């Protein structure tokens, strides 16, 4: 039975791919039809992925023999790339999450992608975005990429789907490419898409180099062939290579670091994190789907997949894992600090995403890959929920603004009204109860409110690992980040939902349509309850009820790949620290923003208390400016230098050569032309005429002549046979 279901695995990415082609080729003019096709396809994919995932969950013994199915694809000399699918515990978990989240966001999008405020309303015919169909085509293609990435059984396919997602990300960030802002320093969707694409390109190039090195070493890119082969991993860890500047490192370290750069780019880790906040220029479902739940977590997924290589990399020289842990922990804290000072509702969430992904990488770096994958899954649920909630809020505020505009309560005295600015909101809980409460559930989960939220269990797992493994630096970094997380999350909640409306738009914001609220509710359930798969076994009370199922499954899988996944004993110290920090963060947020809600036009109280630090944080540590200075400016300067060089040196040489050529030509022309060229042309003509006259005799136009010649040739050949 399970085999029958697993044999369907390869079908999972197919419906959405077909939906993409169907929409692009046929359904484009019909908007509702397009969205229905896309939703139908993703629902099929969802059913298939849950069928596969649940089949896997109920048969834990399958972990010993993961399902794999592949067919030959690209023969390359002696080797053949295989195209195939594989299902193991990680895949099953990802399928469970991805299928569900995709479906929820697709449904949400069908409500969200109504006419945006910045466009000319005269274009509006049916209340839908002018490129509604195209949007669904893109996200269908994206869904294909994500599902394909999850089920792929080799790195080449993974890379292809990875890049496919990159493309979709670019297309979707710049979806509203005609949008522009009065403030020229504010990034437009077009620029944001370009920025995301180019930034991730840095990581992807390094990733590809890593893949090439790995392929050279392993002669295969199939997961099981690489990870199941301990001898090979051993060899990878011991054989070394000499690099300039870095000296002698093992192949494992080189490959791991290169591949990790791919993850850094995709998951927006420091220092390639700059694209993700700007990616918020895309439609909010895209932010939820790509830049919170699925694509950015693909980096984490990749590193989880590659864990055996990373473990091998840290055997001799303890380089790769430490690097991962450092990048992760640093990013977690770094992004959390920035998030504190943002005023755009989506940017806060974007930095929060970066921060949470940092958590996962930190967990991977300290070897707690089980905790990382669980946090990945749970984070996807609540972060998707938060993003969708923020989208709902933005939508509501925009609608409220239109409403207020029509009724003469205009508050656009500053000219441009930003519907994403939290300081323009307030008191929305009353206007949008479903959005509000689900958002609060997501926020609680993100802030890791103890015991009752999913986020608590997964985050606690990471902290416990760090504590138990003695990685104190990592532990404290993450702990501070956890405090900040709780603070900025509830800062957001209080600013948005509590107090009194600070603008007319917020005062008139309506609750969103049902297509948007139902996915919120569904996701809220998971954001709340999903964590119980990660309750440690010996946690008092709960541990006995929830039998630590996911951990168990993943541990079995770890054994398969020879990863050490000894379950850590529960200890109170880190748990209490994490509880305290989370509740403390919420409490501080309440003190600052909740107790005395801000009035309209009032500045952030933090600005006064933090002073210049706040400005630095508000400007994201000036990273954009830094990159502008060290990368963009030199590149521009170099370009203009080369342009000048081209004009002043190369052009002159060329012109001189040209002038000389013209002189030479005019001198030689007559003589050369008359005798050589004319002679050659006439000669060719004569020879052609003469040859033609001779050869013409052969072509009689009569088939039988030709056949006779054929016969005579065959006879001659046969006669030559004995002479051979």
């Amino acid at each position: 039975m399970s085999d029958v279901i697993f044999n369907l695995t390869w079908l999972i990415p197919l419906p959405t791919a077909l939906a993409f082609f169907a929409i692009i080729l046929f359904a484009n003019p019909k908007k509702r039809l397009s969205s229905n096709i896309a939703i139908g396809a993703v629902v099929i994919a969802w059913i298939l992925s849950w069928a596969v995932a649940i089949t896997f969950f109920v048969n834990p013994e399958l972990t010993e023999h993961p399902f794999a199915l592949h067919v030959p694809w690209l023969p390359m000399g002696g080797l053949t790339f295989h195209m195939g699918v594989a299902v193991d515990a990680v895949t099953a978990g990802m399928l469970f999450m991805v299928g569900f989240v995709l479906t929820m966001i697709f449904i949400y999008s069908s409500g969200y992608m109504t006419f945006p405020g910045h466009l000319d309303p005269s274009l509006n015919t049916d209340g839908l975005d002018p490129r509604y169909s195209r949007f669904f085509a893109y996200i269908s293609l994206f869904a294909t990429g994500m599902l394909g990435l999850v089920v792929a059984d080799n790195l080449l396919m993974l890379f292809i789907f990875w890049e496919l997602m990159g493309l979709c990300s670019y297309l979707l960030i710049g979806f509203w490419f005609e949008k522009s802002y009065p403030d020229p320093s504010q990034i437009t969707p077009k620029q944001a898409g370009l920025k995301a694409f180019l930034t991730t390109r840095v990581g992807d190039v390094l990733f590809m180099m890593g893949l090439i090195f790995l392929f050279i070493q392993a002669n295969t890119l199939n997961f099981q062939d690489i990870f199941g082969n301990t001898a090979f991993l051993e060899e990878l860890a011991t054989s070394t290579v000499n690099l300039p500047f870095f000296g002698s490192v093992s192949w494992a370290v080189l490959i791991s670091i290169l591949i990790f750069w791919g993850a850094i780019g995709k998951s927006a880790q420091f220092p390639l994190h700059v694209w993700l906040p700007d990616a918020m220029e895309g439609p909010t479902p895209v932010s939820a789907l790509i830049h919170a739940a699925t694509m950015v977590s693909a980096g984490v997924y990749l590193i989880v997949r590659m864990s055996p290589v990373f473990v091998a990399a840290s055997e001799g020289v303890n380089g790769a894992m430490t690097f991962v842990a450092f990048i992760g922990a640093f990013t977690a804290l770094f992004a959390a600090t920035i998030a504190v000072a943002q005023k755009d509702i989506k940017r806060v969430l974007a930095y929060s995403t970066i921060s949470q992904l940092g958590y996962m990488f930190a967990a991977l770096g300290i070897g707690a890959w089980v905790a990382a994958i669980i946090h990945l899954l749970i984070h996807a649920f609540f972060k998707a929920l938060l993003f969708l909630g923020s989208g709902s809020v933005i939508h509501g505020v925009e609608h409220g603004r239109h409403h207020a505009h029509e009724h003469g309560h205009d508050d656009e005295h500053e000219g441009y009204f930003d519907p994403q600015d939290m300081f323009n909101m307030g008191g929305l809980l009353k206007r949008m109860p479903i959005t509000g409460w689900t958002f609060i559930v997501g926020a609680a989960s993100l802030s890791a409110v103890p015991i009752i939220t999913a986020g608590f269990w997964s985050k606690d797992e990471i902290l416990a690992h760090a504590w138990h493994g003695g990685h104190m630096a990592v532990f404290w970094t993450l702990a501070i980040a956890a405090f900040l997380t709780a603070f900025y999350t509830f800062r957001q909640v209080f600013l948005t939902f509590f107090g009194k409306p600070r603008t007319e738009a917020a005062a008139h914001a309506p609750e969103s349509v049902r297509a948007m609220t139902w996915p919120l509710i569904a996701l809220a359930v998971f954001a709340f309850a999903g964590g119980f798969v990660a309750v440690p076994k010996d946690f008092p009370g709960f541990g006995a009820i929830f039998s630590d199922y996911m951990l168990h499954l993943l541990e079995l899988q770890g054994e398969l790949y020879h990863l050490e996944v000894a379950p850590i004993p529960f200890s109170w110290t880190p748990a209490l620290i994490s509880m305290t920090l989370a509740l403390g963060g919420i409490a501080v947020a309440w003190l600052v923003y909740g107790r005395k809600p801000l009035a309209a036009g009032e500045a952030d109280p933090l600005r006064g208390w933090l002073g210049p630090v706040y400005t630095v944080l508000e400007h994201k540590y000036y990273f954009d400016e830094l990159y502008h200075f060290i990368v963009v400016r030199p590149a521009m300067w170099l370009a203009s230098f080369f342009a000048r060089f081209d004009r002043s040196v190369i052009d002159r040489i060329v012109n001189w050569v040209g002038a000389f050529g013209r002189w030479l030509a005019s001198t030689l022309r007559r003589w050369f032309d008359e005798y050589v060229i004319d002679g050659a042309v006439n000669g060719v003509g004569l020879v052609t005429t003469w040859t033609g006259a001779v050869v013409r005799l052969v072509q009689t136009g009569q088939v039988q002549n030709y056949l006779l010649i054929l016969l005579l040739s065959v006879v001659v050949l046969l006669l030559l046979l004995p002479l051979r």
Partner: protein
Amino acid sequence: MTVPLTWYLIFATALFSIGFFAVLARRNAIAVLMGVELMLNAVNVNLVAFWRYLTPEDLSGQIFVVFVFAVAAAEAAVGLALMISIYRTRKTINVDEINELRL
């Protein structure tokens, strides 16, 4: 099996040569087509003889003959249709009078 294989082959060669002669020398296109049919039949005889004498267990030889039948039938149908068509326009089907392809 008293007849040696070589006899069949020589018979087929003779038939083939006769057919080829018709193809080479007859003026009428239908006669040329008949020559082609003779050649195809010679090939069939060869195929069957080889099948019978070399690989009687494996019936590929016979199967190939059936394919030759199919090709011959298609060739006859299209060829004769062409001839009728040419006859309508040129009032002749003598091959040596049809030399449109000459320069």
